[in-house]
């Protein structure tokens, strides 16, 4: 059937359309040849190591150009046969070509890097941003006059004018003209010209193949149009997601099998990073005081811990002792911070749920720490924790003195060293984290509580349950999904402990590695020693631990709610 269709133009096809379709066929055939040629060139260059492109990237480019070539050839064939798939392929290829050329052109012309300059001039534009906001407010104000369409129209026009003027002035004030001049100066090599020409060609083809008459000539149905619109709407999101999320995610796994340092070509080392991280051994000791280096291979293992079972002492040796310390610290931190920021949050949320006046104000106050940057919060707490002049030790002394004077308790003021004592540093960080996350959890619990139907409580009251019984028989089980959500988010957050330690500990992860968390250890490896392969492996181990914890909590939630239903 296709042979005749190709020979005879469709009835609805005018000469103009036929011309454009022929142009598209020629273009796709030519483009396919171009891509095939460049693919072959890259394939040949695989053997030639003088071209400075990484092998992985080269293989990727070869695959990409071959795929593009084949698709383009298919597009040409389908269009010749007046098949709608040809139009779809053509639009996708031209759109991708357009986006790639545009992105690459902007890169070559220094637009992304030019954001630095914008950062410098941004302050001059602030008044005009404010003006634009005022314009928006005028429009919003005008929309309230629904009964007076004329007045509404006038407000809207005023709003648009102000916003337009503000936008223009803003662009001028942040240096649009200087930016354009700098842009034009970049046209000093053939590449920007080629790319700009590419943009134009792809745009023209997009416009031509996108024409309604072309669509009709290729028998495009409504569902095909919808597919194209869907892909078009999703494309900015999807392309960004692929480039900055999905690809790095896969790449992260690849890096974890290499000895990458981010700058030099990496070597494949297989599972070595993971092996080094996780390698532990347990050896029996002849007595609990025997030195570890008598039983451990000291070239590999460091003593991590020792324990005793049935009178026999054992020593645990680890190849990477710091990793295990960091894992332990992170888990200990979770055990401290998570319950203390979840259980009081539940209790406070039930108090806030009482129908007393002023509860909204309390909720607002409790949520306040969640708005502030952890870095800023940590700086405040650093001084609260100061052992000489800090408020926390001052409050402790006040309490101790009060107790002594009242009950003659004879307590001694502990004068804690908080952050500079390896016994209390992690506790101090956990305490601060509790303060910072409590309000967030309260708000989550409160919204969970408000969704529990009131008649359950009424039924419980009829059954003679007192408030405590009601709390455990109605509130806790009904709140199980919220509790699960709060627990998992708090745990996931706590497992990624970094910023607090970075600001509060001195030296980083100290004193004496007592606040070294997994992410801090990852940071040290990846961005201080630039052992990025090792850091990636640590990240994946952390991810698996987090995933396991979440799964564990999910199972528990499922089984406990199941018990309730039964």
């Amino acid at each position: 059937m296709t042979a005749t269709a190709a020979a005879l133009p469709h009835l609805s096809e005018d000469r103009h359309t036929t011309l454009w379709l022929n142009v598209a066929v020629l273009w796709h055939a030519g483009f396919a040849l171009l891509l095939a040629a460049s693919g072959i060139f890259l394939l040949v260059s695989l053997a030639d190591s003088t071209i400075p492109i990484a092998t992985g990237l080269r293989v990727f480019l070869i695959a990409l150009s071959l795929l593009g070539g084949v698709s383009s050839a298919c597009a040409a064939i389908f269009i010749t046969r007046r098949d709608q798939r040809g139009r779809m392929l053509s639009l996708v290829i031209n759109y991708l070509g357009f986006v790639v050329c545009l992105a690459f052109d902007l890169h070559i012309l220094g637009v992304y890097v030019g954001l630095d300059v914008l950062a410098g001039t941004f302050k001059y534009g602030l008044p005009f941003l404010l003006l634009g906001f005022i314009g928006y407010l005028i429009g919003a104000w005008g929309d309230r006059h629904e009964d007076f369409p004329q007045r509404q129209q006038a407000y809207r026009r005023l709003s648009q004018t102000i916003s337009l003027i503000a936008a223009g002035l803003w662009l001028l004030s942040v240096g649009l003209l200087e930016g354009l001049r700098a842009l034009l100066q970049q046209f000093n090599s053939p590449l920007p010209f080629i790319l700009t020409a590419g943009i134009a060609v792809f745009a023209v083809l997009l416009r031509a193949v996108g024409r309604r008459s072309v669509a009709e000539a290729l028998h495009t149905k409504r569902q095909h149009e919808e597919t194209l619109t869907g892909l078009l709407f999703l494309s900015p999101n999807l392309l960004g997601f692929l480039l900055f999320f999905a690809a790095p995610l896969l790449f992260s796994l690849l890096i974890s099998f290499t000895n990458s340092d981010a700058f030099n070509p990496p070597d494949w080392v297989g599972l070595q990073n993971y092996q080094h991280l996780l390698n532990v051994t347990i050896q029996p000791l002849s007595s609990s005081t025997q030195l570890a280096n008598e039983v451990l291979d000291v070239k590999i293992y460091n003593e991590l811990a020792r324990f005793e079972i049935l009178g026999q002492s054992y020593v645990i040796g680890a190849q990477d002792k710091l990793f295990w310390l960091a894992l332990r610290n992170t888990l200990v931190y979770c055990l401290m911070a998570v319950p203390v920021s979840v259980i009081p949050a539940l209790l406070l949320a039930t108090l806030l749920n009482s129908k007393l006046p002023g509860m909204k104000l309390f909720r607002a106050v409790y949520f306040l720490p969640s708005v502030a940057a952890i870095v800023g919060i940590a700086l405040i707490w650093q001084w609260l924790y100061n052992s000489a002049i800090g408020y926390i030790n001052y409050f402790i002394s006040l309490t101790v003195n009060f107790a002594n004077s009242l009950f003659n308790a004879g307590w001694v003021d502990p004068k804690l060293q908080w952050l500079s004592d390896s016994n209390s540093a992690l506790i101090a960080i956990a305490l601060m984290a509790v303060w910072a996350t409590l309000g967030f959890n309260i708000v989550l619990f409160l919204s969970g509580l408000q969704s529990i139907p009131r008649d359950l409580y009424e039924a419980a009251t009829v059954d003679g349950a007192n408030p405590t019984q009601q709390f455990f028989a109605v509130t806790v089980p009904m709140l199980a999904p919220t509790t699960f959500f709060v627990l998992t988010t708090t745990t996931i957050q706590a497992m990624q402990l970094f910023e607090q330690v970075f600001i509060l500990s001195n030296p980083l992860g100290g004193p004496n590695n007592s606040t070294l968390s997994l992410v801090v250890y990852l940071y040290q490896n990846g961005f201080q020693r630039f052992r990025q392969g090792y850091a990636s492996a640590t990240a994946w181990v952390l991810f698996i631990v987090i995933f396991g914890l979440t799964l564990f909590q999910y199972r528990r939630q499922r089984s406990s709610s199941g018990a309730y239903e039964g």
Partner: protein
Amino acid sequence: MKPKSYRRLRFIRATLIYAVLISVALFMLFPFIYMLTTSLKEPKDTFVYPPRLLPRQDVAASIEGQPDPLPLYEVQVDGQTRQYALVESNIRVGIYADPSKPAQTYERRLTDVSPTGGAENQQTVMVEGQAKKLWNVEVDGQIIPMTEVRQTAVGRFVDPQNPQAEVYRNVRLSQPVQNLTAHPENYQEVVELQNMDRSLTNTMLVTFLVVVGQLTTSILGGYAFARLKFPGRNALFVIYLGTIMIPFVVLITPLYQLMVAIGWVDRVASLIIPWMFTAYGTFLMRQAFITIPKEIEEAALIDGASRWQILLRIFVPATVPSLATLATFTFLYAWNSFFWPLVIINTGNEANHVLTLSLNVLRGRASDTPNLILAGAAISIIPPVLLYILAQRFFVESATSSGVKG
């Protein structure tokens, strides 16, 4: 009887609830209040123990015949507490006593006494088996030989109204007169010290562009997932959902290497462009759009409206609360982020610092002036707090609808 006791019980219960809630509220607010008041203190005032919340400063008074105003102290004069100015400090004085009447001591400047019998052969006296030097001390016009009990340093205080009236008192034991004050110039100082104005506008730019970019891509993507059918849509949506729970640390090394490859290390672009596309925002907008009745959309399509018009005229206005929620969430994330800027922006390149990075450098640079550090912290914390006060509802909603924490 019963209703009355019931009412009393309710009153007690309410009081208890309020007591708990108010104490927790104080606990929540205290660090912020401490930050604000400390940021207005002078450096000396921050190291006072016991700590005082409000900033205070020494009061000075002008004294006739003195070029500069002098600090006022509370001193005991004739059994009364008076405010005197410290004219001269660290005056060496001796405490002298007559060996026969050791309980009565006299305080004299070292220059006002002379060795008994001359400097060459000073007389001594035996006190408790020890030989002690004797000094001529003038008491009421009489010169009495006395022994020196100890030496000390005092200050000379004068009455500001009557500079002739002077007393000598130990400076360290005297309470300086202080009044409440505020040093807003700390903010000026920290801005100059750490380029905080530049990092503030950088943070504004980054946050602004990330919010605008993320709203745009999320609206478009959310609409496609909610309303446009295309092959693979559901599978793609499941992939998007699955990636929401992946922790950022997994991405940090590959993203860094990507930035190295495209030359964005140390550039503001690296703080903006990678963060314009999120699965979470797309998911949130898809959930919002899917609640809009299909009939409205179909009617508009029949009327000849394009998809763009439908999205901008119907869907976006109908989901303003969700958009505002996503905007606040993104705002907080962008404004407060630290790990990524720390990794990607060089510590030395202060022109590209965001607020959190500036604070990190300031922490080391101003480690002995908490007032400056906390002024810096306030600069980073106050804008989101102000926005929170204005649009509290959306912040709370961004918390309850979040799958990820900010």
